[in-house]
């Protein structure tokens, strides 16, 4: 092949830019703001029972985002986040009751108690990988639960009542907790969104695909994982504090139960791993099912387990993954797209940055 002919024949390349958002993203943004406004206005017309129930929904949304951040983006399948949820709950009591601070403020400080445990724990359990890492996270949760259960100062096995919250006027507490929970859910979503758009987010994608390769290309794997680990612990702590505000009673068995992990796992498996939209969809579905089926308790959990196993085996990308595959919808502009300037000035169906083709051992 002689090259001069080739150069003459090539057409001028179209202009292009790398963009994150499309027109759809802008529509979604407007819709989201509208939904949030409606949710924020709920206390004006809803009953207390409804708002208390919605707190559960918001905490599930936030929890699922954190669990997915760890498992779907950083490859850290934690089955021990309940350690930090429980620490947050006890943190509320510690800061609100014992230290006497305003409970609404205490909620955000309680997350720091979770971080105080998560930080020293990280270098230990990061030595474990895969399933052994997962069990390691559970060991941490068990240690915290056992210690809290054994110490009289924290109320031992029977726990404590969060008096600083209980003493608030009922309307203030219920409305305040509702808005707090809404803020935490939104905060969790935005946190994940901005984290993924940052350099850490890029590092995470590399780590998720192949962390040894990522390390050799200069990505500080430990630091990226640590950031995600600490962020998730903090938010889980805040979630725990919000739950404690809602329930007013904290007990080690309930605060540190593995069921937290189970709920998060179900939601993410059903909704979809590795996307922001997936856990939101999953939380909506899970919560809707919860309303109608929770009376069946054990049977409900059994069915969820079966659904989770089937979906994780057969449809690992979840319901959202199915939607993406069929209609190529992305609500959150997280990935970078190649946008060509065509004469019609429309966004061309973008060539999404492809994942690495499955590499063979040798060619």
């Amino acid at each position, binding site marked *: 092949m002689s090259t001069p002919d080739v150069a003459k024949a090539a057409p001028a390349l179209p202009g292009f830019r790398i963009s994150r958002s499309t027109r759809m993203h802008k529509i979604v943004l407007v819709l989201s703001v509208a939904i949030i406004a409606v949710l924020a206005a709920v206390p004006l017309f809803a009953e207390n029972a409804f708002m208390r129930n919605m707190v559960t929904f918001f905490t599930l949304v936030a929890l699922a985002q954190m669990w997915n951040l760890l498992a779907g983006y950083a490859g850290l399948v934690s089955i021990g986040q309940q350690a930090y949820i429980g620490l947050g709950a006890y943190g509320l009591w510690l800061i609100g009751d014992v230290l006497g601070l305003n409970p609404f403020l205490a909620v955000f400080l309680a997350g720091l108690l979770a971080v105080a445990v998560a930080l020293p724990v990280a270098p230990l359990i990061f030595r474990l990988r895969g399933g052994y890492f997962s069990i390691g996270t559970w060991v941490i949760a068990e240690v915290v639960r056992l210690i809290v259960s054994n110490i009289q100062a924290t109320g031992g096995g029977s726990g404590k009542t969060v008096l600083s919250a209980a003493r608030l006027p009922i309307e203030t507490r219920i409305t305040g907790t509702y808005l707090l929970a809404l803020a935490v859910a939104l905060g969790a979503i935005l946190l994940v969104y901005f984290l993924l758009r940052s350099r850490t987010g890029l590092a995470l994608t590399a780590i998720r695909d192949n962390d040894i390769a990522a390390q050799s290309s200069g990505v500080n794997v430990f630091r990226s994982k640590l950031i995600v680990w600490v962020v998730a612990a903090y938010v889980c702590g805040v979630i725990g504090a919000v739950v404690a505000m809602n329930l007013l009673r904290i007990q080690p068995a309930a605060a540190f139960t593995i069921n937290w992990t189970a709920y998060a796992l179900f939601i993410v498996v059903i909704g979809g791993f590795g996307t922001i939209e997936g856990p939101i969809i999953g939380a909506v579905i899970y919560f809707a099912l919860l309303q109608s089926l929770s009376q069946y308790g054990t049977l409900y959990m059994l069915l969820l387990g079966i659904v989770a196993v089937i979906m994780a085996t057969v449809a690992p990308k979840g319901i959202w993954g199915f939607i993406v595959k069929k209609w190529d919808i992305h609500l959150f502009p997280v990935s970078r797209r190649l946008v060509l300037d065509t004469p019609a000035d429309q966004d061309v169906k973008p060539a999404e940055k492809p994942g690495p*083709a499955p590499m063979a051992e*040798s060619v």
Partner: protein
Amino acid sequence: MTDVVLELQDVDVFYGDFQALFKVSFQVEDGMTFAFIGANGGGKSTLLRTIAGLQRPTSGHVLFHGEPVDQYPAHTRVGMGIALVPEGRRVFPSLTVRENLLMGAYGGRKGDWNVDSVVELFPLLKPLLKRGAGSLSGGEQQAMAIGRALMSNPELLLLDEVSLGLAPVVIKRIYEAMVQLVGSGHTILVVEQDVGHVLTVSDYVACFLEGRISLEGKPADLSSEAITAAYFGM
């Protein structure tokens, strides 16, 4: 008229979106030693892996004694008489040399090859039988890997880059052993980057470039200029 042991018909192989082989076709007769040369990434290893069953053709067929074998997974092909010595040796490091050889016989056929006859072919293995395979040198591992494949009493022996990473004196010894194999009635497919040695033992050679055969023929009939051109695609 000699039997056609192996035939490839228009074989395409993809790794995800990447196409490694483009409509590859050729025939190998019984007792023949067929060499595949070419630069890295040309598709030679993919070819052997496909014949061995580790890779499935996206289209086209692999025929063994005239019958298509594409539906058979790799672990059944050993029992049919196809044995691959994979690229990079791939020994079992926590097994001893003897145990590695015994593994070769695990799914193989009955025949003359056993630990003793393998050691006869590669005397350097004799003192190493009890040693962990992970502690062997490259040349020792290569000899063992070839012996391991022979333990299955194959009809078709596939050798992938056996000289890779070995010192010249070691390569010489491996090829000396291979000359004995060539004479013993096996059909052998050899993949090599090092052209020099392999042409001396083979009856037929094909050069691979970017997934296609760019040149083929008997070594005696091909000039070194033609081979070089086909090798580098000039």
